[in-house]
């Protein structure tokens, strides 16, 4: 067979479990017809009906294969009915042919294998249980027949049970090595302040119950690398000058330093037996205290390194495959962390830009106002009027503005998170200033919870308060504004209630677009409830990674 034909054949059945099962059913139907045609001893019960049923089954199998060959929808739709048909035929065969040459075993294998291929170990287990029960029931029904032999029946039941358990075990095993954890689920847990190496290592260790481990990664193609290791209770970060594994051609390997053994798999799945001294740097291994365990390669968009695990209870050859998955998952965690950090940094940079613009606007206007005031005071002084009061006012304003400027500058400098209490304190200071500025009474209350607030959210809060107060005074002529801040379901909740004119039912509610825009940018939601004499704005901003 030429290579081209081989490739064509491969593509016919690659990722085509439905097709393979349907074809298997057709072959089974035909083979069985041939078998019973040659074997005169079977079937010995309900001969005509058995032949009729087998013919029907063969026809159905061919029809099924033809109909589902290129129709994935139909394949999925008919999967369960076809499965039930297979099981029914199995029962009939057990019932009608239980002699020494009964081909019942083939009919047992088909539904069991197709359940294992198509679905998970659970469906395989259910199918196996159902088939064994059907086997026992059919056996009980024909127990009086002359062809029935109890001994043969018990041995066959034992075979079925063994085979079922084996297939169920394969299903469970496949699930364990392939999907032992979902990188997606980790995102919520992965705080961005956390050391990503520590987090990834802890997760890898937990998944194989290892008592010790190290994660060593550095920029691709460069040394040194950053290392993080956990040994029992002790954890440390360190620098690694030399590569731990000399040859990066094995994504996962088991090592035993004392025996100088390394076991790995070739891409075709065959084992490869190597000397540990060939692959693993002895000095680095000694420094880590490696004896026996697993090493898996870790690759991310920009980093390359090794995940090393030791003190793994019941380590086995299966851990080679598991190691490969662990290495991939570890890379995914590191990548996600890098992405998250990049998004955070970008958001912080944008915040700084906005802040710079705000500083510019506010400070320029303030200074311009101050200059005009001084001009006015100069004139008044020239005409002999008393200016002391005006000068005092100006001095107070300057001191207040100084506070605001300090807030801006510290916001620019600060780390990426602040405490909720700190955010509330700053909001109170701002509320005081706004009260003075707009001649209203503005109060901030908080329910005393603790939470870490990303800096951009804290700045958003301040802007939202400024805009909400300005809106309430400008549009609603409010005299009193109550602000409540709290945390609920990982969301920051800001409620602003004012006693302004509100929106009368006859007038459509005007959307506070500037507020809305800012809230949407923070992936939050805004709800406005207004009636004459009161307006309530309820804003919810996500605290988590999605923000």
């Amino acid at each position: 067979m030429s290579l081209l034909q081989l490739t064509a054949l491969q593509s016919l059945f690659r990722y085509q479990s439905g097709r393979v099962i349907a074809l298997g059913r057709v072959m089974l139907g035909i083979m069985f017809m041939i078998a019973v045609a040659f074997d005169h001893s079977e079937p010995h019960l309900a001969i005509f009906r058995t032949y009729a049923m087998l013919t029907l089954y063969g026809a159905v199998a061919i029809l099924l294969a033809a109909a589902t060959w290129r129709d994935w929808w139909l394949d999925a739709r008919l999967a369960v009915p076809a499965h039930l048909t297979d099981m029914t035929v199995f029962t009939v065969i057990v019932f009608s042919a239980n002699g020494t040459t009964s081909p019942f075993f083939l009919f047992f294998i088909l539904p069991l294998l197709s359940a294992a291929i198509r679905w998970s170990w659970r469906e395989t287990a259910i199918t196996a249980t159902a088939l064994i029960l059907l086997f026992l029931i059919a056996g009980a029904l024909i127990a009086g027949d002359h062809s029935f032999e109890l001994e043969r029946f018990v041995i066959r039941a034992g075979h079925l049970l063994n085979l079922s358990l084996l297939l169920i075990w394969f299903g469970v095993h496949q699930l364990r090595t392939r999907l032992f954890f979902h990188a997606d689920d980790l995102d919520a847990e992965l705080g961005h302040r956390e050391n990503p190496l520590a987090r990834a290592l802890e997760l890898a260790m937990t998944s194989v119950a290892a008592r010790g481990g190290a994660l060593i990664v550095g920029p691709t193609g460069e040394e040194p690398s950053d290392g993080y290791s956990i040994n029992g209770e002790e954890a440390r970060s360190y620098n690694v000058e030399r590569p731990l594994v000399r040859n990066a051609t094995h994504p996962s390997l088991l090592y035993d330093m004392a025996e100088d053994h390394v076991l790995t798999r070739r891409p075709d799945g065959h084992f490869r037996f190597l000397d540990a001294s060939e692959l693993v740097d002895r000095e680095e291994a000694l420094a880590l205290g490696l004896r026996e365990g697993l090493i898996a390669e870790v690759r991310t968009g920009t980093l390359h390194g090794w995940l090393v695990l030791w003190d793994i209870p019941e380590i086995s050859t299966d851990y080679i495959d598991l190691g490969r998955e662990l290495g991939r998952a570890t890379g995914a965690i590191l990548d996600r962390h890098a992405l998250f950090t990049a998004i955070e940094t970008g958001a912080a940079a944008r915040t700084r830009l906005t802040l710079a613009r705000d500083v510019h606007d506010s400070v320029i206007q303030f200074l311009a106002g101050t200059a005009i005031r001084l001009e006015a005071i100069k004139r008044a002084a020239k005409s002999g009027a008393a200016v002391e009061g005006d000068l005092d006012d100006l001095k107070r304003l300057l001191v207040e503005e100084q506070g605001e400027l300090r807030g801006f500058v510290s916001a620019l400098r600060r780390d990426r998170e602040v405490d909720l209490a700190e955010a509330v304190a700053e909001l109170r200071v701002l509320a005081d200033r706004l009260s003075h500025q707009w001649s209203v009474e503005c109060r901030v209350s908080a329910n005393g919870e603790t939470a870490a607030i990303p800096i951009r959210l804290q700045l958003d809060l301040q802007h939202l308060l400024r805009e909400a107060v300005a809106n309430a005074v400008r549009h609603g002529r409010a005299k009193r504004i109550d602000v409540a801040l709290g945390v609920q379901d990982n969301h920051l909740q800001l409620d602003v209630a004012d006693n302004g004119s509100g929106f009368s039912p006859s007038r459509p509610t005007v959307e506070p677009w500037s507020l809305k825009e800012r809230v949407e940018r923070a992936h939050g939601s805004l709800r406005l409830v207004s009636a004459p004499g009161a307006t309530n704005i309820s804003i919810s901003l996500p605290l988590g990674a999605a923000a």
Partner: protein
Amino acid sequence: MTTVLLVDDHPMIGAALEMLLRDTDYELLGRARSVADANSKLSKLKPDLVLLDVNLPDGSGLDVLRKLSRARSRPNVILLTAGMDDSQSLAAAELDPQGMVLKTSDPSLLTECIDTVAAGGRWIDPEIAQRTGQAQERAASAPPLTRRERELVELVRQGLRNRDIAAELGVTEGTVKVYLHAIFDKFRVGNRTELALRAADLISR
């Protein structure tokens, strides 16, 4: 005595201007903090002079000026600004107020401007005049409109919405948006109103 209406939303500037006009030949009739507020106070108070900020919370002071320039009797207007971009400078020059002052200039210039305008003269901050000149030069050196852009600008001038423009030109609304933003960038205008205002100038080139 000259009656004055002050339109500025910043509390510090408002208070400072109030102080500056105190005990002078000017009588401050009131203060507006938004475009809507300004429009209603203008028709109610009928001041002789308006000190008008360009950036207001619900729109542009230029909109107030535009509305005034269509009115039969209009007060003298002094635009106050902390800085304008090109499109604002060009729009302001077109609307031709009696005075323009930068808030960041020496306040004595502001009083000089107010006195000159109140006496029937014109007073434009030299820095604004210079910036406007530069903006005009930049606008003149902008590439001419393509045939498609010309059609689009014409339709914007007629006051059509994006959906109607799309139907008219046989393209999708999204395409209209893309084209419009390209035109905004090309001619440094901020929105369709400004584009409509400059449409005659752009199409005639």
